[in-house]
């Protein structure tokens, strides 16, 4: 079914009787070419691009809950490609380009809104680091603008310029960055994959892998055994739990990142703003809620909820930088389980087990990566070769000393 304004008008005039389910609810077949474990954004995007780009449609996506119920449904919706390192920036810029054509590709309005991201800096050293990053971005084909204090003041006059503990010295702006409607991304990819024949199987938990002589032949699930020529895992915060069933230990820890939304307000913020001297970032949704967050809580957890010290720390950052939001009320706080890797960068790779592939370690940056992650994972699954923009995302990079450590924080996941 093609979506358009005309279709809506037609349905409105005929009582909306013609709308069909956005995806089917098929029973699993006994065997697929590729089984994707995890029906979140990355898994669904992988399925979509496998079908659309590579023509591989004998594919199942297995999801233990309902599709899009993981981090794709609980993030702060920021899309950007303002990375520093050559192992990352081309990948995220490719993702950005896919975002820019996503709605037309999916025929689904994911409300990608390029209103920019502004990273504030508060010292000369921070400005120099932003300059290094901004130049790296432009060199990779992305866009970046270095603002001085006046430039920031013109853009966001309501920030605290005059009484700040850490005065605002400038910022790095990526005008093409922005936000997207997170759930719609999952639904759009699901619809795209489903319409090409991919089976999306919800409430189907993988409980084990069928591995014979070092070759993965399928998965055990809560709905029985499902055979597969290739099994592709992308389960974010559950990575360690799932891969343990294949006997693998990963360079990943699971942590909680909290996020927050305020009551609806008339528009106040242009795009995304991040505070360089505290832990705070914020944007405003189309619906009017201020969507904001900060650091992870720091302890390992699978509980999808956090604690008060971080909540208060985030709001302190918010009040320090934009004290006009003091009378806005926080409406809801929630947590997502992040697959924090040892250098803050992800993996899209084969595993030592033939036929078993792994995608994970997205930390709290997985949402913006969704299109390119799906694209590159599909490429790897279809061709058994890493995609050119994802060649560094290898599981053995720590053994080889090829870390992609944007923050320079070292092998401590809660610092990334």
């Amino acid at each position, binding site marked *: 079914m093609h979506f358009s304004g005309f279709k809506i008008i037609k349905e409105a005039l005929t009582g909306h009787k013609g709308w069909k389910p956005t995806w089917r609810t098929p029973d699993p077949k006994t065997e697929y070419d590729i089984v994707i474990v995890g029906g979140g954004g990355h898994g669904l995007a992988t399925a979509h691009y496998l079908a659309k780009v590579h023509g591989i449609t004998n594919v199942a996506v297995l999801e233990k809950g309902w599709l899009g119920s993981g981090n794709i449904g609980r993030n702060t919706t920021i899309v950007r490609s303002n990375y520093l390192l050559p192992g990352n920036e081309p990948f995220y810029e490719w993702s950005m380009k896919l975002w820019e054509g996503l709605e037309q590709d999916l025929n689904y309005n994911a409300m990608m809104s390029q209103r920019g991201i502004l990273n504030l800096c508060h010292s000369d050293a921070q400005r120099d680091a932003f300059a290094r990053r901004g130049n790296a971005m432009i060199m990779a084909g992305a866009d970046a603008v270095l603002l001085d204090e006046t430039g920031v003041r013109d853009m966001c006059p309501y920030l605290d310029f005059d009484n700040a503990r850490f005065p605002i010295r400038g910022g790095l702006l990526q005008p093409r960055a922005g936000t997207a409607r997170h759930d719609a991304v999952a639904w759009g990819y699901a619809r795209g994959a489903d319409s090409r024949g991919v089976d999306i199987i919800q409430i189907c938990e993988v409980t084990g892998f069928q591995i014979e002589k070092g070759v993965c032949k399928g998965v055990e699930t809560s709905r029985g055994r499902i055979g597969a020529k290739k099994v592709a895992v992308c389960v974010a915060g559950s990575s360690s739990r799932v891969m343990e069933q294949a006997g693998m230990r990963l*360079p990943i*820890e699971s942590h909680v990142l909290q996020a927050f939304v305020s009551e609806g307000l008339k528009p106040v913020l242009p795009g995304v703003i991040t505070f360089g001297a505290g832990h705070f970032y914020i944007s405003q949704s189309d619906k009017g809620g201020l969507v904001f967050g900060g650091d992870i809580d720091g302890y*390992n*957890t699978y509980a999808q909820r956090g604690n008060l010290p971080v909540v208060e720390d985030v709001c302190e950052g918010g009040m320090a930088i934009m004290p006009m939001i003091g009378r806005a009320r926080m409406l809801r706080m929630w947590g997502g389980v992040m697959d924090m890797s040892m250098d803050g960068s992800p993996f899209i790779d084969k595993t030592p087990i033939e036929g078993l592939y792994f995608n994970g370690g997205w930390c709290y940056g997985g949402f913006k990566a969704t299109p390119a992650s799906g694209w590159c994972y599909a490429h790897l699954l279809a061709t058994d070769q890493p995609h050119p923009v994802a060649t560094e995302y290898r599981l053995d990079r*720590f*053994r080889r000393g090829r870390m992609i450590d944007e923050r320079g924080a070292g092998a401590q996941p809660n610092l990334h």
Partner: protein
Amino acid sequence: MIIHHPLLGPRDAAEFYVLGDAALIDRPDGQAEDAAERFYGYLYLRDNPAGEHRELWYHEQGDRSWLVVTRDTLTHEIKKVELARDVALQKGRGQ
């Protein structure tokens, strides 16, 4: 969260710095033949269990003790708190 410090009693978790898996106590011998591989596993690979997890917390805003906290990563229930030094000594770590 509240951590029952073995020396100081119940303390708010916000007083602590959390490092992660207590297996970081088990630093391999740097002079061993296979030191490179052992250090790779030591520093980079994690069990990351959903359930009981032994982890290192540092009482930075307090007495500077490193603690081994046994905590459930599903419920956050804390079952045991020990001085990391005692744990390390029990494991045979000395000089």
